């Protein structure tokens, strides 16, 4: 009888302790996670997000949306429609994981600088900033978009040059800047830039693009001081 009472008493104490640690840890979690982390009454509209949360796989869900976007963007048939659904892919990926910073950078760069859809790009950047206010790189993009819209090339280039200084910029910006240099700067300056991209870029496609542009310029004898640039 005494043993039973002792065990019951021990279990009650453990229940008290478990409730205490659970509350403390949950409080800690709730304090340290942003609002978007938690499901809300509208979450049911996107079943994939609910499933991702139920299995503890939110980041992975976002990764799959990102891969879907790449497949969509890589399919040339969609070019005919100017990738009209592109923004939806970015929204899905960033709804599942609003902290997926690269999607905002890559997505806004494609929407604004490749497709000229400034409104959608600005919307995506604003979403990115609302969830990640410390992500100041997006502000640089916002500036670049503003000047591209106004056709103020100098300021636009300045913003892009600032953006590619940061290690996690999307490689598409390197190609974009090189193409602009070819249009507005001398061939030697553009070639110099392509050489530096060829040496420093981590992206294979961009490396190949830089090589092809250099070869094109050499083949067409556009570069004056070729030895100096190669050196």
């Amino acid at each position, binding site marked *: 009888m005494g043993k039973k009472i002792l065990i019951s008493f021990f279990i009650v104490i453990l229940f008290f302790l478990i409730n205490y640690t659970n509350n403390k840890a949950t409080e*800690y979690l709730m304090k340290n996670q942003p609002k978007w982390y*938690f499901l809300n009454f509208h979450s049911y509209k996107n079943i994939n997000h609910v499933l991702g949360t139920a*299995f503890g796989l*939110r980041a992975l869900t976002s990764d799959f949306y990102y891969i879907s976007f790449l497949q969509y963007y890589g399919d040339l048939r969609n070019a005919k429609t100017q990738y009209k659904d592109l923004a939806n892919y970015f929204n899905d990926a960033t709804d599942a994981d609003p*902290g997926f910073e690269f999607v905002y950078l890559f997505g806004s760069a494609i929407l604004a600088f490749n497709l000229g859809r400034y409104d959608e790009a600005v919307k995506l950047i604003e979403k990115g900033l609302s969830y990640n206010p410390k992500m100041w790189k997006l502000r640089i993009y916002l500036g670049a978009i503003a000047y591209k819209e106004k056709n103020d090339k100098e300021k636009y280039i300045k913003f892009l040059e600032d953006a590619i200084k940061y290690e996690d910029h999307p*490689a598409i910006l390197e190609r974009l800047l090189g193409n602009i240099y070819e249009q507005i700067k001398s061939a030697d300056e553009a070639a110099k830039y392509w050489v530096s991209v060829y040496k420093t870029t981590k992206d*294979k496609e961009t490396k190949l693009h830089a090589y092809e542009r250099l070869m094109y310029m050499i083949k067409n004898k556009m570069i004056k001081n070729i030895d100096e640039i190669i050196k």
Partner: protein
Amino acid sequence: MRRILAVAEYIFKQNFRNKILNVLIIFAILSIGFSLLISELAKEVEIRMTKDFGLFSISIFAFLTLVLSLTIQLFEETELKTISMVIVKPITRAEFIIGKFFGIILTIFMNILFMFIILMVVIKIRGGDPWDLKLFLSVAGTFLSLSILTSVALFLSVITTSIPGCIIFLFFTYILGHLTVHLKNLQYKITNQLVYKIIDILYIMVPNLELFNLKDKIHTNFSLFTFDYILLIISYSIIYILIMLILTVIIFNKKEF
């Protein structure tokens, strides 16, 4: 203590002798290898993809290890009647349950360790940092949550009458365990008192597995990877396991074979 270790060793060896678990390991290797392919598709975020997919594989295969290990144990105990042989031996039922618990979590630990080493190699190949502390803590979180689930599984195995029933309950515990924090967060907006109370009960009874889900947070800067938080979740898991094992032993002691 020696008898507990003997049971744990027996369960561990039994799990590894079983071919299903070997197939599971092969699947895990393939799955992590698949993460290489996935990351190849997603240029510029390949390290993130590799980590996410690798951590997902580790958690899902570790969970499957638990389910299969439990199924095998239950099948042998109930269908082959091996339990009758165990309870006549000079070993208490409490020692048997505790030994079984340690045997299963040792199996899970070895599986997780094996998969984690592979993941680290894959991350290194992709040019990432395999010694990232967040990665270690995420895997540790997965192990802790599975240790809790093991204790729940043992509890379910003594209260349910069938193997499928036990597995289904365990599966629901896994899902509900990840949702209790979200329900708790929504609770403040609920006016219905009955629903409010149900959420409270679920929050207390169901293991709060979302606390251990650090793999979803390794890319964010929110400070969950702190000593205080880790200490809290370790304490929570130890107490939860202790309660589950005590309740399992109490019910198991009353069972007649």
